[in-house]
């Protein structure tokens, strides 16, 4: 006979189980239908995160596609102090590899934080060395660092980008919208140990920055920097600037300033070293401005080469001011007025032309206005309108006083004479390209205006050749090429008067005379003990012209075998 089940106990257990069942069913319904979105969101936050994808900053190249500025991967070292087991070992190893101070590292590692920086932006070799040690609690974050392989070549021109890869000066800043690119983002899935899984979709890909191809030639820049170093040190100058320009296209082949800086350590240099003096500094040009007066005289037809000017034997009164020449001259031919740089002769020429003509030609040569080169901090210089000229201005402006110019303006002006009379807009950027090398934007040479006739330009070339061959620029004579130019020795203004101890020594010219290719401007600020442009600046012009022309000839001459054969045939 089977034992009798008591109905009450059975009912209680049954109710209990049914109750539990309904409880769990209710929880299920709650999670599935009422709290599902909250829980999904919580899970998503635990397992996924949005990651910003940093774009690569574009590079900067010279005209031969040699890199001037590129991004290099660097690794910043951080520590998680709670995970560190052997502090002494870490202190010892980091001190040996990175040269970190023992007390600095100890102080950092003893802090009660989860994240401590130890060293920023280390190169890949140091990173691998530290990683190879296998020390607990040390990790790396990869960052990008803007690096300049040529360190101090064309420093002020290129400028620099800061820690966060934003351009802060020079071309890096002016063309930052092209170089910067735009960030993208992605959703990253990670596991319970917070390791990333490669199961993500890039929701918005990053757009890498475009690269720039400059008109600068690295070799020409180096030649220029080599010479500017020599004159800057030899003459204990306060500053110096050299500009090399292609006369036919207006492309800037080199631009150097002193003092200068190493772009890889820009923060260590004073602000003064970062200034692009070729465009930010203006000065009274002195005698080199006579090329404007002479060009105006010939172009208007009021003077010819055959005309003679009496130079008053070195002393000439204009209104209440007495003008002097360095050497007393009597009757000088028009060419010799410029070749010997006679202030009196030039003033007399200007007086015959009239202030309006001198002003108009000065304007046409680009003075008193920005060259629109796009370089940071460019100034327009000073060229007073005729209405503001005093009675003595006619004896000052034509010889380069009461007027202020920049080195770049001078380079463009002398190029006018070299290329047959056309003012070309100075160019510094040739192209904007993408990472595949395809051209996004191209900057073509631009003719701004016709300044003087070809015949005038030809005559001026002859005159400037005479300056070098028989005039004040004899130290610019070359054995290899015929060079042409004009010297300038301008007194600087000090306390409202012209100083007798501070000068700007300058030389502007072009080469070779027969088929001008390059224009070179050399400006030295306060050279000592010598201060004449013909002594200080002319030799630098010669050395740069010779080496640059040789370099360009080698580059353009692809068939070296034939050249060798020609040499032997002779």
């Amino acid at each position, binding site marked *: 006979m089977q034992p009798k089940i008591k109905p009450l106990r059975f009912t209680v257990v049954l109710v209990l189980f049914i109750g539990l069942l309904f409880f769990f069913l209710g929880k299920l319904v709650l999670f599935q239908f009422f709290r599902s979105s909250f829980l999904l969101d919580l899970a998503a936050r635990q397992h996924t995160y949005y990651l910003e994808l940093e774009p690569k900053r574009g590079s900067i190249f010279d005209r031969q596609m040699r890199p001037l500025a*590129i*991004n290099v991967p660097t690794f910043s070292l951080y520590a998680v102090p709670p995970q560190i087991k052997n502090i002494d070992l870490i202190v010892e190893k980091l001190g040996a590899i990175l040269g970190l101070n023992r007390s600095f590292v100890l102080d950092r590692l003893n802090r009660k934080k989860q994240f401590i920086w130890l060293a920023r932006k280390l190169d890949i070799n140091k990173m691998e060395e530290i990683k190879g040690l296998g020390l607990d609690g040390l990790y790396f974050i990869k960052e990008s660092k803007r690096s300049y392989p*040529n*360190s101090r070549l064309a420093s002020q021109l290129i400028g620099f980008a800061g820690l966060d890869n934003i351009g802060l000066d020079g071309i890096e800043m002016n063309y930052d919208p092209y170089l910067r690119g735009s960030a993208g983002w992605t959703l990253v899935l990670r596991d319970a140990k917070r390791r990333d899984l490669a199961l993500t979709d890039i929701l918005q890909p990053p757009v890498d920055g475009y690269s720039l191809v400059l008109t600068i030639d690295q070799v020409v820049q*180096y030649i220029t920097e080599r010479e500017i170093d020599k004159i800057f040190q030899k003459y204990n100058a306060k500053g110096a600037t050299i500009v090399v320009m292609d006369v036919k296209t207006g492309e800037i082949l080199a631009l150097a300033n002193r003092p200068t800086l190493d772009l890889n350590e820009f923060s260590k240099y004073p602000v003064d070293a970062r200034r692009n003096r070729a465009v930010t500094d203006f000065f009274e040009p002195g005698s080199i401005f006579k090329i404007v007066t002479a060009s105006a005289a010939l172009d208007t037809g009021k003077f010819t080469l055959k005309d003679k000017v009496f130079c008053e034997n070195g002393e000439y009164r204009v209104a209440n001011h007495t003008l002097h020449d360095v050497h007393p001259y009597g009757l000088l031919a028009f060419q010799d007025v410029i070749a010997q740089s006679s202030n009196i002769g030039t003033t007399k020429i200007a007086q015959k032309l009239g202030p309006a003509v001198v002003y108009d030609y000065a304007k046409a040569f680009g003075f008193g206005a920005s060259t629109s080169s796009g370089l940071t901090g460019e100034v327009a210089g000073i060229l007073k309108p005729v209405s503001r000229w005093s009675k003595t201005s006619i004896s000052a402006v034509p010889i380069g006083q009461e007027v202020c110019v920049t080195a770049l303006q001078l380079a463009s002006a002398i190029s006018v004479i070299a290329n047959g009379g056309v003012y070309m807009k100075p160019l510094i950027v040739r192209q904007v390209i993408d990472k595949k090398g395809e051209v996004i934007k191209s900057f073509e040479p631009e003719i701004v205006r016709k300044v003087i006739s070809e015949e005038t330009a030809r005559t001026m070339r002859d005159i400037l050749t005479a300056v070098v061959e028989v005039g004040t620029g004899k130290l610019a004579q070359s054995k290899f090429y015929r060079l042409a130019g004009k010297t300038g020795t301008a007194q600087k203004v000090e306390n409202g008067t012209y100083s007798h101890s501070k000068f700007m020594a300058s030389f502007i010219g072009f080469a070779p005379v027969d088929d001008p290719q390059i224009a070179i401007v050399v400006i030295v600020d306060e050279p000592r003990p010598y201060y004449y442009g013909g002594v200080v600046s002319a030799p630098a012009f010669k050395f740069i012209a010779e080496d640059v022309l040789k370099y360009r000839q080698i580059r353009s001459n692809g068939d*070296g075998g034939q050249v060798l054969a020609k*040499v032997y045939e002779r």
Partner: protein
Amino acid sequence: MRTSRCILYTALGTVLCLLYVFQQTEIVKLGYRIKATEKVLEACLDRKTALQYTLSSLESPVNIDRSLFINGDDFEMAKDYKLVRLGPPAGKERPMLAKAKSKPIFKRLAMLSWFSARTAQAQTVK
């Protein structure tokens, strides 16, 4: 019959579920391997960029100048110069190379592998 069918369906369902779980874990494992490979690739690319920077830096005339003059030696530009070309003019390939390139690639490979001519041996001059 009903019981055995129920058991069969349950077993089938369980196997399918297990297969699905297996697939998901394999995908995650693949994700780890891909991630590890990506890290290796990234490290190689970083190393390549660092080397390119080092090369550019070494080729820079500023650094060449510094290394040449480090001993205080003085170099002068030649007063006169000649262009000397050791090979054929630029733009024209060496004749042997031009001839080699005219043959189909498989023939060239066969010639290299089985029919390559004896190479000259350098011998010490006594």
